[in-house]
């Protein structure tokens, strides 16, 4: 059967006054039914823009300029805005990074939930309300009936993110794009929410794209992982393979900078340098200026090489020799 989502060579560019920012430049990946894909990479690598491209919410001056976004076989890049609207929040849902900002401060929670139900289904208000209440209960909000009448500012950050998740679940979508949904929350609440989302995905067969820069989250949650750097995927594969035996120097650096994966006493390794400006990115490997293994070969553009079964990396000198610690 077809995968839930198949992204091929997606290109999303921002046409700014200073020049064209190639925020996403030829990204491809597949998310199978009921699978969780972890999309990682440092700030500015194009993770959010990828998510917004899928759901059709790239704001000007940005535009999807190329590629296919096949959702259950249908190319989202080609359908009309109205058809896209009917999918949004219905078959594909998105959860944003900052729970404090995702709910409208001047509208009550019930308004914001019921309108989502009514946007896609012709039901009466009472049953829409019923659905909203059930969804709140499902994400573990106590006494949902009363909470429906509250305004967002009467909720804590964790509670607000639960509300956002409940809204995403209202129509039991086939795909949820979660853009760093737990980054703004403290660790215990992160854990709770992760567990719940995992349970929900397993129970409903929903596919998930989990955007994060926190590798430890991905380790526990995702089936597959895609590492982004400067608008491209530099390594992808099954979570266990990639995290245990990373191939791309950038992935190696990323894993090295996670405290829990280091041996005690060993200093944390930082990736030197900064994300390059996406304006006028020089030809060749984008990681070159920060890479210890770079040489003249890297002045050419590396392709995504199949290096091991189920693991690919965009590098001329991958870490093939090392064995995982």
């Amino acid at each position, binding site marked *: 059967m077809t995968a839930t989502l198949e992204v091929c060579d997606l290109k999303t560019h921002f046409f700014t006054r200073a020049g064209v920012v190639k925020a996403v430049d030829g990204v491809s990946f597949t998310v199978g039914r009921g699978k969780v894909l972890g999309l990682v990479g440092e700030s500015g690598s194009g993770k959010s823009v990828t998510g917004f491209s899928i759901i059709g919410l790239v704001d000007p001056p940005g535009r999807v300029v190329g590629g296919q976004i096949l959702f259950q076989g249908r190319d989202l890049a080609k359908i009309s805005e109205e058809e896209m609207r009917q999918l949004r929040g219905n078959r594909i849902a998105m959860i944003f*990074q900052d729970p404090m900002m995702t709910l409208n401060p*001047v509208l009550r929670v019930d308004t914001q939930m019921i309108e989502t139900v009514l946007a896609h289904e012709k039901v009466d208000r009472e049953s829409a309300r019923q659905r909203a209440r059930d969804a709140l209960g499902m994400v573990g909000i106590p006494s949902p009936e009363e909470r429906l009448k509250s305004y967002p500012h009467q909720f804590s950050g964790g509670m607000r993110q639960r509300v956002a998740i409940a809204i995403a679940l209202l129509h039991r979508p086939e795909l949820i794009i979660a853009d760093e949904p737990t980054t703004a929350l403290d660790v215990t609440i992160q854990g709770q929410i992760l567990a719940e989302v995992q349970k929900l995905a397993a129970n409903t067969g929903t596919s998930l794209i989990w955007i994060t820069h926190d590798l430890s989250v991905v380790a526990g949650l995702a089936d597959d992982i895609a590492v982004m750097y400067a608008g491209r995927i530099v390594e992808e594969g099954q979570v266990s393979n990639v995290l245990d035996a990373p191939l791309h120097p950038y992935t190696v650096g990323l894993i090295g900078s996670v405290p829990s994966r280091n041996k005690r006493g060993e200093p944390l390794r930082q990736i030197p340098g900064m994300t390059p400006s996406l304006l006028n990115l020089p030809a060749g490997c984008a990681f070159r200026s920060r890479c210890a293994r770079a040489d003249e070969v890297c002045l050419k553009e590396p392709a995504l090489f199949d290096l091991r079964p189920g693991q690919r990396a965009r590098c001329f000198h991958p870490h093939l020799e090392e064995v995982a610690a």
Partner: protein
Amino acid sequence: MTVYLLRRLLQSLLVLVAMSVIVFVGVYAVGDPVEILISPDADQFERERAIRALGLDLPLWQQYLVFVKNALQGDLGRSFVFSEPALQLILQKMPATMELAFGAMFISILIGLPLGLYAGLKPESPGAKVIMAGSILGFSLPTFWVGLMLIMVFAVQLGWLPSTGRGETLYGWSFLTANGLSHLLLPAINLALFKISLVIRLTRSGVRETMLMDYVKFARAKGLSPARVTYVHVFKNILIPVVTVVGLELGSTIAFSVVTESVFAWPGMGKLIIDSINVLDRPVIVAYLLIIVLMFIVINLVVDILYSVLDPRVRLEGQA
């Protein structure tokens, strides 16, 4: 909270005292109080009596106390022209001015909000550019000249609307009768002109800011229709600040009605004060100034208190 309120009240009182001193000094020290307060038509005997009655032979600070004492009893002198208590005269004219001011504020929201919304939603469109250029004009055009032009076009050339007066009133209000309403329309539009520009700018920048908010994007991600996103999610957020600002402008609208009332011969407080200044009816001038100052202080106070109730940060600051 109580402490904050008390302190705020005390501040207002101080401003009021300061302003009364300024007005007092303006009347008694800069000009010749005899000339200012006693009708020029009075004969010698009347003058003498009035000087003693007003305590003009006393030292200045005592005179001020007498002035304050009278003012507190609602006695701000009698108009030379109408020989009526000045205060009463002004209060009689107040409804006309209030009607005009509220009419103007209503119109400014009615016209300014949709235009600002459009300019904010489609900032690059030609329509938006025209609206914004128009709002610059609205800020720069002198109110009185626009008033004249309105009269010229709508009253003289087209003959659609009357140019002067309040028309028929019901219970003292023009807007309750069709005739009165037609009289109200031009002056209210004239007075609203500046505020329309203000509302357009506020709305536009509010829309543009709000459109960038995550919750608007989230609303779109929920699959809501563009109309619902705009008119519920964006609009509701900007409505509160815009209406608040317009409310804050009540004082300045009343002040600027002086000009509009003169142009359209609208019989309100503003026209009264200009007429009084022109015939040197000084007790009325003094009374008007004190009432306006009081009004301003009350408006500012109410707004401050409202803010402190609504915004927790202000409240904390007051307690600290």
